[in-house]
């Protein structure tokens, strides 16, 4: 029985320090012979099928024993005070851990991309965010998107199943989907609607999407569980999760706070949509990157301590 088998494996894994969040990884590692659900999750040749299968698999699992698993995992956590993430079982390394220096480097590359886009805007094109918000935003995202996609596609989760190019393509798709998502969110929160704002909103949402959706899409693809974990629960595990989760949340929260000066009657041009929101988002993004670096450093050092 596949399900029974998986559950028993799962329990074993739990005892050895795994959390229920990685149910699908265990499913993937079950042998193909004894289960109809043996198509690996991240076979990207058939991404949709594998995805659906994995989902149904999990839902079957859940109905039976989710409560138990939750309980167990909670107890495990309490005992161990912090979770051991390192996947030692081999196979598809689900949680890749990057060294802090690599994290720092990639964040620096993103930051430099951002800074160079600003530099280009002021010195080459002589435009700035306040006077020409739409064109400046376009310039920023045009420079930042390739940087982010090319960089994060290196860290794609399903290293073995999908090629680098595929990850890049996913990133581009994520850019569009994320832009729609962010534009909707901004409009719901009160961004002005109108033809004169269309370009600004479009470029702003593309930039926001670059900060939030693009890295996630490049790394996770269409894995609902990962997306759910990162964006709905904000529970990163492993350094890549931190690298995606914290800057994205930073950008969104920063943008939210950036909207605060807008109703004040200071009569400054930067109070217009979306200038101060962009500033807030960029500051939040930078803070998020810094925080993610700190988390990774802390994380690694605590792991070393535990290892000893």
């Amino acid at each position, binding site marked *: 029985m596949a399900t029974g088998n998986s559950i028993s494996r799962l329990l074993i894994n739990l005892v050895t320090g795994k959390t229920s969040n990685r149910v699908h990884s265990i499913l993937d590692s079950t042998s193909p012979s004894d289960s109809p659900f043996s198509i690996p999750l991240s076979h990207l040749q058939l991404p949709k099928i594998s995805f659906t299968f994995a989902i149904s698999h999990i839902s079957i699992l859940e109905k039976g024993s989710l409560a138990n698993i939750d309980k167990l995992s909670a*107890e495990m956590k309490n005992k161990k005070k912090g979770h051991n993430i390192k996947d030692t079982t081999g196979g598809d390394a689900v949680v890749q851990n990057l060294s802090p220096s690599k994290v720092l480097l990639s964040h620096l590359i993103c930051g430099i991309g951002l800074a160079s886009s600003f530099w280009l805007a002021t010195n080459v094109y002589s435009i700035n965010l306040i006077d020409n918000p739409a064109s400046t935003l376009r310039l920023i995202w045009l420079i930042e998107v390739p940087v982010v996609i090319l960089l994060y596609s290196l860290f794609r989760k399903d290293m073995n199943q999908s090629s680098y190019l595929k990850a890049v393509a996913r990133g581009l798709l994520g850019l569009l989907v994320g832009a729609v998502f962010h534009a909707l969110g901004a409009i719901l929160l009160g961004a002005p609607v109108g033809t004169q704002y269309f370009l600004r909103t479009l470029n702003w949402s593309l930039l926001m999407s670059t900060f939030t959706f693009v890295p996630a899409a490049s790394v996770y693809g269409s894995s609902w569980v990962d997306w759910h974990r990162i964006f709905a629960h904000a529970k990163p595990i492993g350094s890549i999760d931190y690298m995606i989760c914290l800057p994205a949340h930073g950008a969104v929260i920063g943008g939210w706070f950036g909207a605060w000066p807008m109703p004040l009657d200071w009569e400054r041009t930067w109070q217009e949509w979306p200038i101060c929101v962009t500033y807030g988002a960029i500051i939040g993004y930078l803070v998020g990157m810094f925080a993610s670096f700190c988390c990774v450093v802390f994380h690694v050092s605590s792991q070393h301590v535990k290892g000893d």
Partner: protein
Amino acid sequence: MASLTCTKFTLLAAAAILLQITGLSLFVFGFFPIRPALSGVSGPESFQPPSASCDSFKDKNLTALHPDQLKSLYQELSSITPSYDRLILMVIDGLPAEFVLGRDGQPPPIVLKDAMPYTQSLLANRMALGYHAKAAPPTVTLPRLKAMTTGSIGGFLDVLFNFNTQALLEDNIIGQFFKIGWKMVMLGDETWLKLFPGLFTRHDGVGSFFVKDTVQVDHNVSRHLSYELYSSDWNLLILHYLGLDHVGHLGGRSSILMGPKLREMDEVIKMIHLSTIHAQESDHGRTLLVVVSDHGMQRNGNHGGSSYEETDSLALFIGPRNSHASATDDTINQVDIAPTLALLFGVPIPKNNAGYLIVDLFHPIEDHQLLRVLELNSWQLLRLTQAQSTDSTCGSFSCRAVKKDYSSGHNGYEGSLEEISSCLYLDAAALHRSWKSKHVLRSVSNDDLMSTVLAYNEFLRTASKQLSHRATDKPIGLLASGIMAMLLSCAMLLGLLFKLDKEIYPRREPSLSDLQNYKFQLAEVLVVAVMVVIVLSMGSSSLVEEEQYLWHFMTSTFFLVLLRKTIQSAKGGDLSNLLNSSMGNGNRTCIQLCSIAVIVISLRVLRGWHQGGVNWTHLPDISKLLEMAGSTWIRSFQLLSVVLVISLCLYALSVLWSKSYVIIVIELSYLCVGVLVLQYVIKYQGSGVEASDNDASLAARLIYTFLVMLTTGTVIASPWVLSFQNTHTNLQDSTSNVQSMDLLLVIKDCLYLSGTTYMFGWCLVQLLLQQPVNLMPISLLLMQILATIYYASHGGADVKQWVEISALYYLGMAGHFSLGNTNTLATIDVARAFIGISSHSTVLSGIIMFAITYASPMLALLGMVMSISMKDINPREANIGQLLKMILGFPCLVPLALNSVLLVAYTIILLLMRNHLFIWTVFSPKYIYVVVTTVCVLLGVLVVASTVTYIISAAVFLGRRQYKQGS
């Protein structure tokens, strides 16, 4: 932890509410003193002594008199020859008296002195009399102009009582001048034109809001000057120069523009003086030039408060004669200008004047005339004090104060200011009489005159002080006790809320709920954050003006967080369930997602409906688009919203658990009312004849009656009808368990039915009352509130009840602004408050105005009944009191507590801001709204609480009776 009993809880909550009401009324009466103003206009009766009876004034038909006749009548009655024929009133906005007269006996700085050489020379030659005229706060132009012309110190509530019109209705000298046939010319600030519409023969008004312009505003005044000064057809010329105030706003007192501006003003004074007063051509008559400023300014140029710099305004009288007194450092009150001018020009003193005349200006004058002007001023002040005196024995000015020491002269009275002033008047009147008799006998000495004048002065000073104190004093004790009471009640309500919250949601074991707790905290934290943000924003005048953005932003954020939470609770596997939503769990999530989508989208549409606030009203919004697109569009949206509301209503009624003929009857009657409203909307709304047309008001009254009867009838009858219906169906199996389940279902059904009735009744009334463009927002609001209730009822225990009720409250507040309301009094729809009222009734139209303005918060509060009906009621709760406390007390506490927090916070902020520039224009109107919101919340909670209590007790009573009959 001992749980509260229901009685104790009710008593505590009621005590808190009573405390809140008491504290609020104490504060309001302390902060906004009500000054009993006399209506009407002074006429010839003011030249007669106030008689002993209250209303002896015989209403002579004075309107028949020709202005010239009136003028001679006044002169004859007053027996004073006017000293001047023409008046030039030059108002220099914002000029501190310090600039001209110096401070504390010191001359002004040499720079300022050099800037106004001509004026200084006039002062030095004693051609002019200058005074520091103390202005009362608020030191902004409009109230100051009122004070100068009426002599009264206005209260804020004046604005409320006539917010309909800006015209000055009180008795004032401009009106008095007009009555005696003066021709008047006004150049300058258009505030004068708003205050005195139609009184000016010629005028050129300039707007006072474009502060950056310091040159053109004054040029627009001065360009007419040469023409006006040489024409002889006017008696009063008003020049209002705004430039100096603008200079102050831009650069403060020491702005580099200040010197040139003062020089310009000096040139104007020189020009007037040389051309009219100095020359004194015989055909122009004797002209008096009065240079006044309405208020001063702070170092940085702001004004509005009550600091010395702001209240130190100028009064400079430049006449043709050398005066013997040089009074450059005397301090008068700004209100003294009105009686002085009135007496100088021989018109009656305005009725509500609280000032006393400036004696120096009347010199040289004959003795009996001097005493006569003092007497006239005293009579007028005495009339006013009589009218304002609290005891009803008006007119009997008995001296009740005890004379402390006869030897120490006039200052020797003890007692209240009121008693002293009447004693002083009697003294002065007696001295005047004796002077008169001696005068006839020609044995009068200078001492007699002096003592009479002194006595009159004493009385005038006392009475004036008494009157102005009543208007401006803020009784600290009253304010403090009011705030303390409100704070206490706020603490009580919050305490009760926390206690009940602990009882209803006992703390779970921490080991299991770490994860769960984290998930649900964000929404709860946000509920608190909304309050904190709103409270903090109240301190900023621009955020008070643009409050709608905050409510919308925070409410949308709150619902987006709920959206995230919903997705969160949808476990990984739920996505597939969502895709083929056949499973129960996924279905539930899907419903939740859909309701949140409905809420956020309609929130956004509502936000775009009216571009509210103050600063961005010119930006396009949906209502403006619709109005531009023409009436067809508005009409179709109107019809759409009426149909939407009716169909929502029918749908809501049809999902009731118990199907019976009663429900069908109710549905049919709602359909009936809906059709009536639809017909009304089609026929009358937007046609412009609503309020006046007879048929329209008849139809509106028909709808009112029908709706009120239907709603009350349904609510009162529902427990009886629904339980009787149960008797027939379930009589045979009456085990106690089934019985209690039955009872529960009956209660829930009744509550649901009443909640539906309330909400739709209110909505249908609103469809009738709101302006045509606002019908769609009403139906969107209804949809939002239904969706919120629906979301919470499908969210199980995930959404705590207090979060749900807070969300309803926030939706109500956000909707309040979406209907076009702002925090200024200007957006109150007065015209529509007369729909369906045949005769003018302040009470009825007030109620309708309240209903129109508070449509949205009230709808949200009424939605609480339906929300309560969706909650799980614990059938094992044997004690009806306990049951009531849990299902009714807790939700009712939420809006009370939220509102009390806002009320207390804003009250404290208002007190802190009492010297702020915008206290009267921004903060006080907002406070009125906060107070009325409190009234709205109290009313709504009262309705909800009484309905739920009635339904539950009636249903339990009926259930027990049935049970007895069954067994």
